[in-house]
């Protein structure tokens, strides 16, 4: 469904992403992992075109999208969250969610900001995520975990085919993390494809169908969690310490 071919992003002499290639199969939960500085978030930024890649190709459902602007990529069905929640302060949660609904053409700009249908849909999503009660709170009044859930709600408003989650459980308490995992599983069961960057190895190993491991801007291994867990290159580059600790 999503194919990344030889993706490169250089910042001067620094090769943040250096020829990364991997594929995300339709209906899967694919994890992108790697040590700090491996290039995961930069790869995310290039896929969603928040950053222009230096070279390489990104294909979504057989269509090349790496030359498109971010809003067009979102319209094609690829939506993303950010590592640090970028909610729009001074806007309510429901506005933060509805702002992600599609607007067609010049005439569409002058439609009411929130239609009854959009309001129902947004409330439905917030209800699904269990945060209906904060629908009318200002974005800046939310806790970190609530912001994460709001980000997820906003993604869903645009009816995506694939969502890119950048550390969705980062910095949240274990109980909320389980809640988020449950939501991701439920969405995936409903047919949504998920690409996820996360540092929590335990979470990644039990949630993902496929794991792509990056180190120094390159993909060093990809496969099922079991394959990745046993790969010597991964053990050496990144996972060794964690897995050894788990084994002990």
């Amino acid at each position, binding site marked *: 469904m999503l194919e990344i071919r030889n993706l490169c992003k250089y910042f001067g002499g620094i090769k943040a992403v250096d020829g990364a290639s991997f594929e995300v199969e339709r209906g899967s939960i694919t994890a992108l992992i790697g040590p700090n500085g491996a290039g995961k978030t930069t790869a995310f930024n290039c896929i969603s075109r928040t950053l222009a890649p230096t070279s390489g190709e990104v294909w979504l459902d057989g269509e090349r999208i790496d030359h498109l*602007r971010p809003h067009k990529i979102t319209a094609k069905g690829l939506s993303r969250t950010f590592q640090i929640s970028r909610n729009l302060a001074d806007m309510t949660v429901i506005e933060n969610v509805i702002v992600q609904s599609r607007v067609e053409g010049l005439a569409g700009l002058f439609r009411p900001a929130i239609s009854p249908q959009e309001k129902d849909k947004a409330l439905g999503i917030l209800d699904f995520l269990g945060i209906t009660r904060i629908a009318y709170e200002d974005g800046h009044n939310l806790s970190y975990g609530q912001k994460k859930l709001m980000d997820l709600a906003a993604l869903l408003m645009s009816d995506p085919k694939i969502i890119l989650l950048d550390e969705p459980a980062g910095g949240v308490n274990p109980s909320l993390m389980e809640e988020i995992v449950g939501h991701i599983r439920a969405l995936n069961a409903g047919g949504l494809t998920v690409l996820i960057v996360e540092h929590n190895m335990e979470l990644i190993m039990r949630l993902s169908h496929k794991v792509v491991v990056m180190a120094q801007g390159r993909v060093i291994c990809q496969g099922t969690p079991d394959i990745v867990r046993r790969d010597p290159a991964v053990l050496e580059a990144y996972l060794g310490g964690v897995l050894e600790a788990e084994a002990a």
Partner: protein
Amino acid sequence: MAATLHTPDAGAVLAARKAHDEKLAKRADQTRATWFPVTVLAVLLALPLLQFTGNYNYLLHLVLFTASYVVMAAGWNILGGFAGYVSLGHAVFFAIGGYFSGVLLARFGISTLLTAPLAGLLAAVCGYLIGLITLKVRGPSFIISSIALLMIARILFDHWTFIGGANGLALPINDLPVLWAKLPYYYAFILMAAFTVWATYRIKHSKLGLGLRALSKDEIKAESAGIDTRFYKVVAFALSAFFVGMAGAVWGEYLTYLRPNIFLIILVSANLVLMCILGGKGTIAGPAIGAILIVGINELFVATMGASELNLFGTGLVMAVALMFFPLGVVGTLARKGKLPRILNWD
């Protein structure tokens, strides 16, 4: 996935929506007082009746002058307040409107009151095209580009002989008696001000307004949310230019002459910025309150200190002190503190 999302507990959704609607209705009822601007408009429309009791031309001029700034500041607010792009070049659209309608008046005798909407459209087209270039940058770079626009336009208008160059262009004076000569322009500006405030309210509560608010907070996030930020910004620029251009058209005929050093000065643009900052950038009532305060304060100091450097000092001092206590502008700060009087809540 859609099935998962769209079949939550329907009863809970409807209940939440109903509760919210009731909450909003209650809040609106408690805080908004639309009767106030409507009453102010009615009083202003009736104000010229004073002319039957004496000569109130000065008062009419002051109201007209303030209304012209309400039109322009409210227009500027679409780009500067909603989208967060501070332009110091909006005097260019003031000039485009003034010269377009002025030339039609001087050469074909068509009143600017008829051609003002066309002047606004021309300004909007120019705004759209200029926006395509200048809105690629933001922050200080955008501000500097807007000043550059003003300087380029000044050079162009100063040397364009067809429109009178630096010497300007005299326009015909209407043949109404002195007591009533201001009335066409007075009503034009009052109605334009009312229309502009209403239009900015509609824009703020539209998809465009929501998108502009989003991109003013975080443009990268807004673009990722599916908003075509470039398109939204240029549309905002064009709309903003439309209102300023329309005001320029009528202002030219009111002055009876057009000169680049009247229209193409940074003071005009700076006034729009200051009015919105003082009143409350991004609010509906803010530009109107800012225009009333700045015109009023300036007039007070001119009357008491004369048109000297002192009056400018006085106005600047009042502004500085006001912004110490109202950092988000009068309306913005009071709204943030939950102390906005109902009569000023037009949002």
